């Protein structure tokens, strides 16, 4: 069912990872991504994965959720793997047919890239699993706020993101409901040709759009009634604070990125 979409889904909890300042978590995620991309060796990548595994262990996210986050990108992984397998030509040739050849180098690169992509997805999912979407957009707004100086509507963009995120579950739920209602009227969405199936979506999409517009209008009205006028001079109900644990987290991840760099320089593998 549609409910199974998990990218960007919050998994509430009380672990240290959950309680980190969202700005710091954002920063850590960036550090982690950089770490993955400067790692040029398997050992470097392994260090990054150790870092990730530790973070997941602390956050107590079940293994099932991790696998779920990888599922939607399986086609991308396979595609990347195949591309690398065929187009990298370094190393000894193992198999050769027609214009393709598979070499030791291509296998190595393919495996490396696959691990890197998986680690990337699982790592960024941790951010969204442990941070509520609202906290996340809040953090993004704060991190980007210097851009206000060059007249970028940072607050408005963040507000739009918050609203969009807020309404994803609502829309998903609504889609499920409408789907059920049309199924109850005998709509058949599971069989037939591709065109027939696409047509079967009409009874779902139209009510969905109608209700999305209705909601948008109601929300705009409600915001205006409460005198919302943009970011100018607005204060926050929940202030973000950096705590000692945030310092530790930055320190540990800095140590890890240093480790990755050192491993790569030494180049033992």
């Amino acid at each position: 069912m549609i409910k199974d979409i998990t990218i960007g889904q919050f998994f509430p909890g009380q672990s240290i990872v959950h309680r980190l300042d969202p700005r710091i978590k954002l920063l850590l995620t960036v550090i982690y991504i950089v770490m993955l991309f400067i790692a040029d060796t398997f050992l470097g990548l392994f260090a990054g994965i150790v870092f990730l595994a530790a973070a997941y262990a602390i956050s107590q996210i079940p293994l099932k959720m991790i696998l779920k986050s990888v599922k939607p990108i399986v086609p991308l992984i396979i595609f990347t793997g195949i591309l690398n397998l065929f187009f990298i030509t370094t190393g000894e040739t193992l198999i050769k047919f027609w214009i393709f050849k598979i070499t030791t180098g291509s296998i190595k690169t393919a495996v490396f890239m696959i691990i890197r992509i998986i680690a990337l997805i699982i790592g960024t999912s941790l951010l969204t699993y442990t941070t509520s979407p609202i906290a996340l957009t809040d953090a993004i707004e704060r991190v980007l706020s210097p851009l206000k100086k060059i007249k970028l509507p940072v607050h408005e963009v963040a507000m739009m993101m918050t609203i969009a995120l807020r309404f994803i579950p609502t829309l998903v739920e609504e889609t499920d409901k409408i789907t059920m209602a049309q199924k109850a009227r005998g709509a058949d969405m599971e069989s037939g040709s591709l065109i027939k199936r696409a047509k079967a979506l009409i009874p779902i999409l139209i009510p969905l759009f109608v209700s999305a517009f209705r909601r948008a209008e109601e929300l705009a009205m409600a915001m205006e009634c409460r005198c919302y006028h943009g970011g100018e001079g607005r204060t926050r109900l929940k202030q973000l604070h950096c705590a000692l644990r945030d310092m530790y987290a930055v320190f540990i991840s800095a140590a890890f990125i240093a480790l990755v760099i050192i491993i790569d320089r030494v180049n033992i593998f």
Partner: protein
Amino acid sequence: MAVIETENLTYVYGEGTPFRKVALDNVNLSVEEGELVGVIGHTGSGKSTLIEHFNALLRPTSGNVFIDGERINWDEKKTLRDIRFKVGLVFQYPEYQLFEDTVYKDIAFGPKNMELDENEIDRRVRETARLVGISEDMLTKSPFDLSGGQKRRVAIAGVMAMEPKVLILDEPTAGLDPKGRETILEMIHHYHREKKNTVMLVSHSMEDVAKIAKKILVMNDGRLFCYDDTKKVFERADELNAMGLSVPQITRVFNRLKEKGINITEDVYTVDFGKKLVEKVMEMKK
């Protein structure tokens, strides 16, 4: 014969997540054919979840559902559609599922899915439109141009037009004014009398249920509290109160009168009946 039966029906939302919630807990019930059943229970007691099982929209976590004596077989997807034609389900706020460009086409959506021929579809659309009080000239209008109450009636007609053996309505009067509620209730009652089909009506209003239901099914925290004649259920006023439900206002009034020592033997749960009774008592006093 029982048209709907459940056997140890249990349903859990969000199994394996922190949001796990047992919505139905071991429900056993059997609804006879031709009955008009009211379904009541406080909010979140599992009414909607229960009825969504009756037309195979939800797959039980454990237990079975029997329609017309046949077990719903979830592994045979093809049979599920037939069950949905047999058990028509009108969701809460059904007007949000209208999508065609005319009222006529929207009511015809269900019958069309049943692959009936044109004449039969036409007959059904016109007949149900009449039944729910949608005039001929409204049939060519866009459903989005109707009033809230009219939209609701069109949506209900869309399910009725499939002529299901069992018609289930989830809070069909929610969010309407007293007159709109009255119209919808009357319409359902009328449908029941005309078609003699089984009807289940989920409602928060004891008055509504008392007015038309012969039997009442009470849900409490995912469990079946009782399923009995309207009269018998409203006799258990104290128990209903304890689970956050009530009995119709008029019943409360007459219960108080009884407490005060006025000689009333019958149970009262509709205003009409109460009125007659009062007149009778006054008559005797003269």
